[in-house]
């Protein structure tokens, strides 16, 4: 892929943090380079603490790289923060619903921030709740919803602003397997339908292979230790091989 076509592009990105005890720096991301094309879903796998979330936060514009170049739609997501208003949707590991807002109002949040006409925002929010099987729960507060329903609301909130890019940080990890499987299928269908570019962080190999067009496995600190392209053309045997390769890569002891 040429750099021009890439929607998300990292070139030698490094991120260091000061250790809380003041004893030097901690490298979370180490000269990380990759590109993601429009409409591509990339699953990122790695052990806990490998820097996946730091990479995620850099793409989201919430964290500034210490060195290297991170570009999203050709722009710097941290410095050009305002430019990305409405262009990036995020689904977090926990639902992060505002407890004082009803399901409908939570979905409407991004639209309100984007100054969408109130009537239109309400219609969009209602439509997304319905699409995700939450019709009739519009006025329910988060505490009255199950974990799966709350995560559906957070997915609806991310999709409602119709972003070009979706960032998902282990969004189904706190749900039971049945609910997670249903939501995964729904999520992939929605992303494919709308041809969005997505980064999907997970620590489950099966989930990564089910969702991603491509899988990237990170070692600690975040750098690509293994990469494989998936998709319909890949045979079952090849998928099994990739699965085994990923397990082997993840099994390698990584320095803390």
């Amino acid at each position, binding site marked *: 892929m040429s750099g021009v076509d890439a929607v998300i592009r990292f070139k030698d990105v490094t991120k260091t943090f000061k250790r809380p005890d003041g004893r030097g720096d901690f490298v979370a991301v180490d000269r990380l380079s990759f590109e993601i094309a429009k409409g591509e879903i990339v699953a990122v796998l790695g052990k806990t603490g490998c820097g996946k979330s730091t990479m995620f936060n850099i793409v989201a514009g*919430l964290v500034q790289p210490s060195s290297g170049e991170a570009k999203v739609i050709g722009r710097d997501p941290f410095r050009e923060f305002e430019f990305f208003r409405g262009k990036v949707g995020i689904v977090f590991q926990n639902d992060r619903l505002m*407890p*004082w807002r009803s399901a409908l109002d939570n979905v409407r949040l991004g639209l309100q921030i984007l100054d969408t006409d109130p009537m239109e925002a309400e219609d969009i929010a209602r439509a997304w709740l319905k699409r995700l099987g939450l019709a009739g729960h519009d006025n329910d507060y*988060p505490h009255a919803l199950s974990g799966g329903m709350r995560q559906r609301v957070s997915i609806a909130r991310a999709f409602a602003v119709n972003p070009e890019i979706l960032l998902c940080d282990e969004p189904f990890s706190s749900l039971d397997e049945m609910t997670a499987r249903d939501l995964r299928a729904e999520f992939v269908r929605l992303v494919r339908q709308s041809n969005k570019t997505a980064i999907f962080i997970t620590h489950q190999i099966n989930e990564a292979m089910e969702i991603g067009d491509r899988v990237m496995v990170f070692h600690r600190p975040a750098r690509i230790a293994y990469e494989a392209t998936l998709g319909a053309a890949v045979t079952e045997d090849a998928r099994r091989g990739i699965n085994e390769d990923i397990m082997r890569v993840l099994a390698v002891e990584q320095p803390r």
Partner: protein
Amino acid sequence: MTNSRTVRALQAAAGIIALAAGWQILSMVFPHYLFPPIREIIARTIEILITGSLLIDVLLTAGRIFGGLFGAFILGGILAMIIGQSRSAENFIAPVLTFFQGIPALSWVVFAIIWFHGIEFRVLFIMVMTTLPAFTFQILDAFRSMSKDLFEMTMAFRPSRWSLFRFLIVPTIVPGILTAWKVNLGNAARVVVVAELVGATGGVGYQLLRQQQLFDMAGAMAWTLQLVLFVLVVQQTIAAIENWALRYRAVSERAM
């Protein structure tokens, strides 16, 4: 829940009835100018409420309490926001507020009488100075307890400062603001009486001073009850606002 409310109301009523019964017994033992009968106190209390020229003193005090609290709330809110966003501002302002907290209300009364001529401004000054530190620290605590998860989620939508304030900060600090009002209301009611006692020509404090000069215990009790009733009514109003504003909370949190 209704049963537990009824039980609580009965317990509270029993306490007040026991207090009144004790007073009534004392009125039978001691001269009435020391312990007037309950019937007389109630009659004088009602007389104040239905006599326009007397009721105006109650309303004057109520206005002073609200004026002082509102001034301290606005000023405290601004200070809390400034401190919340700047460590340097905190280092500069917090010790001053802590110093103010240590100054007795009576000292502020003396300062106000020496510094200012206008009665209303004196009372307002005393009210603001005595309740400002508590308002500031309570709003600051509420601001600092803002969820990092919700902050990041909201920031992901790239809100303007106004949107961030409106959609996240205000709902986050509302419970703290309501608590601050409840706590400061009682303090303000006590302080305003002291302020009126020394330097005012109207209000409950002034009337209490008159009853002392007339050696009228029933009058003193009746005017005290006006203030108690006022605080109770406002506390109940704040509780009702709290129930409405925090209606999103799970029922179990408010069931006890």
